[in-house]
């Protein structure tokens, strides 16, 4: 597999700093009118860590992602990235903070080719502006974007599909491309929203190993319903129920936590 030299550097660097705290969210609250979707959620993410965010339907997992990516307004809470405090980003600022996100479902642009989809994800790294493009001066920039995008596609084994229209591809493949599109911006933090949702057993296994693999490159927050995926790839778990964190810690302790068992299965009295 070919990787950009700069990607290689990121990996080496990150191994040395593996316990480094990358993202720290304190008492995040989001409410929609009177409904409290998230209440005082704390979450920490270390370098090269895969953190799972689980909970029953409607627990606030996607709302958490939406809050972090600026799609919903945050009522209160603080955000620290790499030890520096940041304002809650607007959606288009997310990439600049080193955060990339995949969308539940897929969110590819169906009428663009696979390559073009990924090139949009690489937008941030382009240098030339609109005027230069209009006058046809951005050729080398385009070529560079294209090469980066091809590398990202190779990472998920879809480079051969680069010229296909995204809308014409089978669902499991589009899931992979969505991840390539997120990876191409070389994020430090990757937010994966149900990457295994709707996939068959074989594709789930593949996704499983990809996520494990990704952790050498960046940190991951994973929202997922497939518990076997969650249990095998995550270093730590946060469990949400009714917008509150009811348990957190390593996979084993969370699995045994009575509050988690109750939230998922109900409890017999």
């Amino acid at each position, binding site marked *: 597999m*070919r990787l950009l030299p700069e990607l290689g550097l990121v990996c080496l660097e990150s191994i040395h700093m593996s316990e480094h705290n990358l993202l720290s969210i304190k008492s995040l609250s989001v409410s929609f009118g009177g409904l409290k979707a998230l209440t005082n959620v704390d979450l920490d993410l270390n370098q090269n860590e895969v953190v799972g965010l689980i909970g029953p339907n409607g627990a606030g997992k996607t709302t958490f992602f939406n809050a972090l*990516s600026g*799609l919903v307004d945050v009522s209160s809470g603080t955000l620290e990235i790499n030890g520096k405090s940041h304002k809650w980003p*607007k*959606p*288009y600022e*997310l*990439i*600049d903070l080193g955060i*990339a*996100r995949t*969308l539940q479902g897929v*969110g*590819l*642009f*169906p*009428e*663009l*080719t696979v*390559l*073009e989809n990924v*090139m*949009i*994800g690489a*937008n*941030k790294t*382009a240098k*030339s502006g*609109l005027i230069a*493009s*209009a*006058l*046809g001066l*951005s050729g080398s*920039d*385009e*070529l560079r*974007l*294209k*090469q980066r995008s*091809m590398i990202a596609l190779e990472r998920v084994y879809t480079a051969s599909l*680069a*010229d296909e*229209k995204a809308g*014409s591809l089978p669902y499991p493949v589009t899931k992979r491309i969505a991840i390539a*599109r997120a990876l191409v*911006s070389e994020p430090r933090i990757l937010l994966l929203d149900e990457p295994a949702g709707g996939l068959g057993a074989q594709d789930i296994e593949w996704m499983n190993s990809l996520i494990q693999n990704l952790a050498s490159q960046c940190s991951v927050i994973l929202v997922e319903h497939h518990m076997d995926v969650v249990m095998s790839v995550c270093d730590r778990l946060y469990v949400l129920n009714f917008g509150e964190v009811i348990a957190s810690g390593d996979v084993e302790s969370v699995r045994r936590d009575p509050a988690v068992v109750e939230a998922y299965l109900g409890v017999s009295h």
Partner: protein
Amino acid sequence: MINLRDKGAEVWENQGRAGRVAIAVGGIAIAASLPFMGGTILNTPIADYESVLVYPIAMFVLMAIGLNIVIGKSGLLDLGYVAFFAIGAYTMGLLGTKTGLNTWEILPIGIAMAMFSGIILGVPALKLRGDYLAIVTLGFGEIVRIVALNLGALGRSEGIQGIPTPPGIFGIEYAFDSHRIYYWTLLILILFAIWMVRRLSVRRAGRAWESIRQDEDAAELLGVPTFKYKVWAFVLGASVGGAAGVIYASKTLFIAPDNFTLQISILILACVVFGGMGNIWGVILGAVILGYLPDRIRFLSEARLLVFGLVLVIMMNLRPDGLLPRKKREKALIKKGSS
């Protein structure tokens, strides 16, 4: 029904460099020789054929290319496009009669004025989406016309008269009745607009617009500054409209608010939709047909608008995506250096 668009693309892609140059030169030559076809079946009875070529046909083509950046490329429904045409025309009218500037000096000023008004309209309006944006732009188109109707300096309903024709360049004289000269001038502007739009649409800006059109939220999450690109689309669209306006005023010598009604906005929109939103060749074909048809069938007098409407309805039923719809299947944009 065969897909003419894909057929055309196939022919183009299978050509070498020489073949492509030949096609382009041939196409331009045919377009440039249209004024000499007056004696053929193309002739428009009653209306002066060469004058029809200038307005509406060439003027519609230019404006449709501009509007296509806004509607076809970025999916922003603009119902007030005539405003930019009017701003270009009134800039020409005002500066042409009040100052000693000539058409060629006013052309960049008119374009700049249209672009500036594009920003003024775009910055507040582009926070809205879909139908709401359409309503605001519709209002803007009317505001510009009504301001022209009420402002003394713009001649109210009388408009501006005695606008000078362009001075001759390269030994070519612009007399107000030498239509073919104006037609060729517009043809040059059209070619420039095509070149600009084609450049943009295969590059980053084109992808950004395309992503905004298909899923604005996803585009924003991927770091596309959607607002900036939407304003740019508006401003570029406006610049083409402004250029058309300057030439229009310099050709007709007389402009009045009645030349810039909502009907023009709708007609240009019809050209874009009829020809095939998003595909520049479709849009050009649509504008040629919709500009030409009413004058070709002028002998039907009163009934011609009925026939015109009927053609629109039938075509929209047979080809809802337009005559030459946008690409059905795209190939990689840059072939060289693929790994």
